[in-house]
Structure formats: structure tokens, C-alpha cells
């Protein structure tokens, strides 16, 4: 018996409350993926053709800083979403991502989802609403990180 990914999508916090019809629709764009420790999920400037729902493990989003090396900007773990560059032109990654531990995730085909969002603007609204919320949270978090709250001069 072939198991669909719908139950996994339904249970994932990012899609809580999404209509059943949309869960079925987006499941058509999803695949199960697995990354071994240190496997690269994507590289800066590569086409951003996916986003990921992390189910297990930990992924580091990194930036190469000249003379300093790779620096981790944030990590996405169980229950978190990775990647929004698939939503906006030019559909290229701005950072690198690497699995810090064995990671299991659902990968969503960005082009497939964009097409479905164009065809059904209600789905498009739901997707943008969820991604905007996530981006707001990340922006707040980044602001706090930049404040150096725990530093001696904080």
C-alpha cells in the first residue's frame, strides 16, 4: 500500500489548520528526503527550487564570510521550515544549508507550488500568510541576535 504524505503535512505545525483540499494539493508537490550528517541541502546562488519541512534532525543555514569562514546564521530543527527563496524572483538561494545531524524532511517543489498558487489564489494567500508569519518571526529573532543581548556591554 502506498502511503501518502498528507498525514505528515497535516501534522506539521507549519500547516496546522490548512484546509484538507489544500493539503491534498500541496502533497502532490512533496517528496520525502533524507540528508546524512554534513550533507549540503543547497548552496548560495543555486536555483531555489524547493523548501523543506524539517521532521527530524538539524540544518544549519550558513554564510561564508571572507577571512572568517562559514558562520551559522540560524538552525532549523524538528517542526521548522527552511527556505522562502522559492517564492520570490530570481528564485535563488541567498545562503548555504547543511545538515548538522541526520535530517529527515519533506521537500516541496517550488515551481509546482507556485503553479498551484497561481491557479488558486486562496491557496496562494494561505501560503503567503504562513511564510510571511515565519519571515516576521525570523526578522525579530535576527534583530535580537544583532543586539548582542548577552554581551558585556548589553
Amino acid at each position, binding site marked *: 500500500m502506498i502511503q501518502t504524505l498528507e498525514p505528515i503535512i497535516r501534522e506539521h*505545525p507549519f500547516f496546522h489548520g490548512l484546509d484538507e483540499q489544500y493539503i491534498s494539493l500541496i502533497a502532490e508537490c512533496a517528496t520525502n528526503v533524507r540528508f546524512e550528517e554534513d550533507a549540503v541541502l543547497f548552496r548560495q546562488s543555486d536555483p531555489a527550487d524547493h523548501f523543506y519541512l524539517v521532521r527530524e534532525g*538539524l540544518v*544549519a543555514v*550558513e554564510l561564508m564570510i571572507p577571512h*572568517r*569562514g*562559514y*558562520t*551559522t*546564521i*540560524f*538552525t532549523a*530543527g*524538528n*517542526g*521548522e521550515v527552511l527556505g522562502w527563496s522559492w517564492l520570490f524572483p530570481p528564485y535563488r538561494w541567498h545562503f548555504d544549508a*547543511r545538515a*548538522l*545531524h541526520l535530517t529527515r524532511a519533506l521537500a516541496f517543489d517550488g515551481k509546482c507550488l507556485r503553479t498551484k498558487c497561481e491557479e488558486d489564489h486562496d491557496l496562494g494567500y494561505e501560503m503567503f500568510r504562513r511564510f510571511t508569519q515565519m519571515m516576521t*518571526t525570523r526578522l*525579530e*529573532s535576527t534583530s*535580537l*541576535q544583532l*543586539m*548582542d*543581548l*548577552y*554581551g*558585556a556591554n*548589553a
Partner: protein
Amino acid sequence: MAPTLEHQVTETLSPQLMLPDLYRIQRLKMETGDTFTLEMIPDNGVSLSFLPGQFNMLYVFGVGEVPISISSDPSASPVIQHTTRVVGTVTKAMGTLKAGDAIGIRGPFGTHWPVERAKDRDVLIVAGGIGLAPLRPALFWLMSHREQYRKIVLLYGTRSPDDILYRHELEHWRGKFDLEIQVTVDRAASTWRGNVGVVSTMIPRAPFDSSNTTAFVCGPEVMMLFTVMELRKRGVTSAHTYLSMERNMKCGIGWCGHCQFGPTFVCKNGPVFCLEQIEPILGKAEI
């Protein structure tokens, strides 16, 4: 005498409260590049009885006096520990003390983490930076009374992997499998295999039952504000959320008014406040 939860902040304005007791440094341990723990014993052999979350006024003779939370195990007296960072003249002088040197202590002062009220509940501890130090005695207490609590979860955020306090203890506790510990840092090189991000972002996915959780929070005020927002989203009530506040404490007994926080004094009515009590003034720029 073992600490009891019936202990109350002394209301009597006794001049004795302004006189420091003499202690001797037993050891100074560097925790990170700028943070150290002073371990000291009473010169007169009389143990200091304190509760998790209380603080002492530490007097470096000839330099000055500063308030510092007690960071040791309440049951480990007579040895008492304080963890602090070098931030000013007094803490700088404190960092040069050696075994056998004298130091003055007044205290303990202030309110404590309500560990008894948290019995039969999940306990969520959220610490930021050196805010882990005032929570350490609560962790000791919870671990030594482990059977009285349900899940115990520690979420700890700090600046970088090099700034993680009590690293060996955290590893030891994590190895016991009855305490969930999640650590995150603000920045890290790619060699760090753990979380990067602010501590409040771990709350949505932390493993606790929000309908039966007591939260203890200590860290920079901005970090506590964002933590409170996430706790609210998870449904942890203000009546079961406790914060340790920090203000400029001088006398330690509510006389001088330096640490006024709205209608309260942090030294006397705090430092540990129930969120319900301070919610209207928390995060107000004027206060």
C-alpha cells in the same frame, strides 16, 4: 540549618542587616572568558541558609559592594557560590581574589523561585546568558527532588559556544535523561553542531504541557519580554510564570529606593516576581 520554604524576607529593619559577615575565598573558577564563579566559606563556620533565586550583597573591602545572585546548591552549605561577569570596578576586583582572601557578605535577600508551587507540574526554565546563574540553585533543587515534578525542561540561550556556563554540569544533567536541556547560541562557527537562534524561538516546540507548566525565566529584560510572548502563545498563564528582574540594588532591604521598579523594590519584593504581579509595568520604558 537546611533552607525551608517558610523562609520569608525579613521585614524588621535591623541594623544587623547592613553588617557583612566575613567569608573566605575557597576557589575562583573561570567559567568563560569574562565570567567566573567565586566559591567561599563562612569565617565563623555558620552556614548561610538560602533559597533558590535569592541574592547576596558581596563586599570587596576597600572597593565596594554589589548584589550577586547565589548560584550554588542550597543543600551544599557551608560552601556558597556566586557567578558573575566582570562588568565594573567591584567585579573586576572580585576577579583578582585568591584562595584565603576575605570578602564580606550580607544576605540572603529577596524572593525565591517558587519551587514548592511547581510540584506535580512540568517546570520550564528559560535562561539567557548569565541569567542561568540565579536559576542554577533551582535546578539543583529540582534535581534533588526530582520525583516531585513532572517534566523539567531547560532552554538556555547564550552568545556563543564559548559563553556556555556550567558546561560540565549541563552535560552531566543531560546524561541523566530526566531533564530535557536545549541550548542555543546567537552566533557560531560551522564547527558548532547545536542550535543557533534566540532562546524564545525554542518555546513553540519545547516538550512541556502548557496547561500544567510553571515557567521560571531569567535573562536580559528584552529576552524575557520575547520569552513571555512565546509563553503566552503556548498558553502558559501569567500566574504560573516567574521572572527574575534586575535593577540597581544597593541596600538589599528596601530602604534606599535605588531598585524601585514601579510600585515595588526589586531587592525586597523581588528579584523573583510572578508575571501576574508585574505584567502592567514589564517592558515600560519609563520604568
